[in-house]
């Protein structure tokens, strides 16, 4: 057991001293995210689309409508039906729905916003509140002052490009760690007879190999955390689902692809050959599995193949959790398929593993 922990500890030190590993694990995915984001992701406009449902039919509604139109960042539409407007809000096509009550009711003005887009809606609400405060001053002689009641509703989240892209980038990096990183490292340890040195000790080989797996799991979590942080801070990507669930998915994905890396490293003699084979497998997957753009963009004929790739279920579940806040239970078949890949990989690796 001590062998396991010391292998993990020393493995982490080696990782931090390895510029190449840090580059491929953190810098490269960030560059990729930036480039793809710049190419495809410039669709957000900074304006807020607001629908006003005027039930008063009188001065109040008119005045509010006129007033809101003065605010430069508001695009104001008049809507007849509250329900229809709320549907559009849920679909993410509106930022706020404002309902002006019928004249004698004394009810407050209602504003509905999408809970999942709190930042956008809050900005709009703050502006709206300022506007109502002004209106109250100006309408000081009105029969009643205006009050605002804001109600959040759960909308179908509108995916922005970075929300979509981030989980794909994460899944891709998890895969690369296994298929490019592990293949190279294990084959190098073998070729340079470092594995043989481990074999020369009385420790059980599992202590060292398990320590390597532990090291990759921890470095993978670290890399993902850095990428997520940059994506959220710099690109305003939104992670809706639970971070703990995402962490668990990252661990699962890392185990599966590290297992594949071990298996691949038993097939090839030299580190170069092992790495090349790993890359040859990972690149097509990277482009096919819906990592950077939706799977549906790929030709219909490719779809069955795409469904078989082990990266596909990982991208799907990570995107579902991260961007849409889905429950993992919705993805159990895919997760089982992914885990099966991992189990088979470790079996192949255990059966074929050579120490020199």
């Amino acid at each position, binding site marked *: 057991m001590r*062998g396991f*922990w*010391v*292998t993990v500890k020393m493995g982490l030190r080696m990782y931090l001293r390895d510029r190449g590993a840090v580059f491929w694990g953190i810098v490269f995915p960030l560059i990729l995210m930036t480039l793809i984001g710049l190419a495809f992701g410039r669709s957000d406009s900074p304006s807020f689309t607001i629908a006003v449902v005027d039930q008063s039919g009188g001065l109040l509604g008119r005045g509010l409508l006129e007033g809101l139109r003065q605010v430069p960042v508001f695009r104001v539409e008049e809507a007849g039906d509250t329900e229809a407007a709320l549907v559009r809000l849920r679909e993410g096509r509106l930022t706020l729905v404002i309902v002006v009550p019928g004249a004698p009711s004394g009810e407050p003005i209602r504003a509905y916003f999408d809970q999942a887009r709190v930042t956008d809606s809050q900005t709009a609400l703050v502006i709206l509140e300022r506007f109502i405060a002004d209106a109250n001053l100006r309408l000081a002689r009105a029969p009643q002052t205006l009050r605002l009641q804001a109600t959040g509703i759960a909308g179908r989240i509108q995916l922005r490009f970075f929300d979509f892209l981030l989980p794909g980038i994460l899944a891709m990096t998890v895969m690369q760690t296994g298929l490019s990183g592990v293949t190279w490292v294990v084959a190098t340890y073998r070729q340079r007879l*470092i594995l043989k*040195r481990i*074999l*020369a000790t*009385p420790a059980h080989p599992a*202590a060292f190999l398990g320590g390597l797996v532990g090291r990759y799991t921890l470095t993978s979590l670290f890399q993902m955390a850095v990428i997520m942080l940059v994506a959220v801070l710099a690109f305003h990507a939104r992670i809706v689902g639970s971070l703990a669930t995402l962490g668990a998915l990252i661990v699962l994905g890392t185990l599966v692809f590290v297992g594949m890396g071990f298996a691949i490293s038993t097939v090839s003699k030299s580190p170069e050959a092992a790495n090349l084979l790993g890359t040859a497998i990972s690149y097509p997957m990277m482009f096919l599995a819906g990592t950077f753009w939706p799977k549906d963009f790929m030709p219909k004929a490719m779809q069955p193949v795409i469904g078989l790739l082990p990266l596909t279920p990982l991208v799907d579940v990570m995107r579902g959790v991260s961007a849409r806040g889905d429950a993992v239970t919705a993805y159990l078949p895919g997760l089982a398929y992914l885990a099966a890949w991992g189990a088979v990989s470790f079996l192949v690796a255990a059966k074929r593993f050579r120490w020199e």
Partner: protein
Amino acid sequence: MPIVEVVDLFKRYGDVPAVDHIGFVVESGEVFGILGPNGAGKTTTLEIIEGLRRPDGGRAVVDGVDVQQHPREVRSRIGMQLQQAGFFERLTVDETLQLFAAFHRRALPGSDVIHRLQLDEKRRARVDTLSGGQLQRLSVAVALINDPRIVFLDEPTTGLDPQARRALWEVIGSFRREGRTVILTTHYMEEAQHLCDRVAIMDHGRIVAQDTPRGLIRTHAPGTTVTVLVDGGQVRFDALPGVQTVQQANGEVILLTSDPLGTVHALMELNRSGEAIFHQLRVEEATLEDVFLQLTGRRLRE
């Protein structure tokens, strides 16, 4: 008391036997050397005894434990320095020893081992900045980390400059003084002669002789060698006075003689009369090199 016993060991790669039915016994506390040229089968022999390779026949018993049945138990009782094996290049000397210590049940403090191998000023240096000699010492340090009673060293001084070699000889000498048993391989006859209590001479997978260095010389190359570089002329060297055997290698003629004065005198006569021309006449005590030459007809290093 024997601590290592090797009985009728056999291993082949393809059709070629790498180790060809060899047997020997190492006594507790002695330094036992396996001397032979490259490809003789030294590494294969050592790694079978260490439990790293399976023999095709025969057996090895280390400290009363059968290697094939309990390889891991054997490995916990021995220390081994492997020929050519690499290190994690991004770890320091200190960290490397910490890591290997964690793979043993029992370990000496890393700083003690580092001090013994004179690596103190390299403690915090990364392994990829070490010189060949320092790497070799680190390799011996790894063999010592579990404080083993039996230490296996596979060509520990190959590739070292003479000064580094002498320093390592010192360390190996200290192992013996501490009562550890040392089994080492080498293709330097000086090393075998200087360090070993007993030497097995190995060639083409066989042990062709084994004894103390003195015993080997007494039995196989008694007397003195006279070496000359011949530059023309036909000479029947075996007819010269005192000459017992004649060996030729790399243009040199090596005469093993019981009468060095008589042999040299006769050679000078031939040179003066112009019957033959010699350069570089050398007269030396016979060494293990001569023993090897007598037994195989070749030199240790070509």
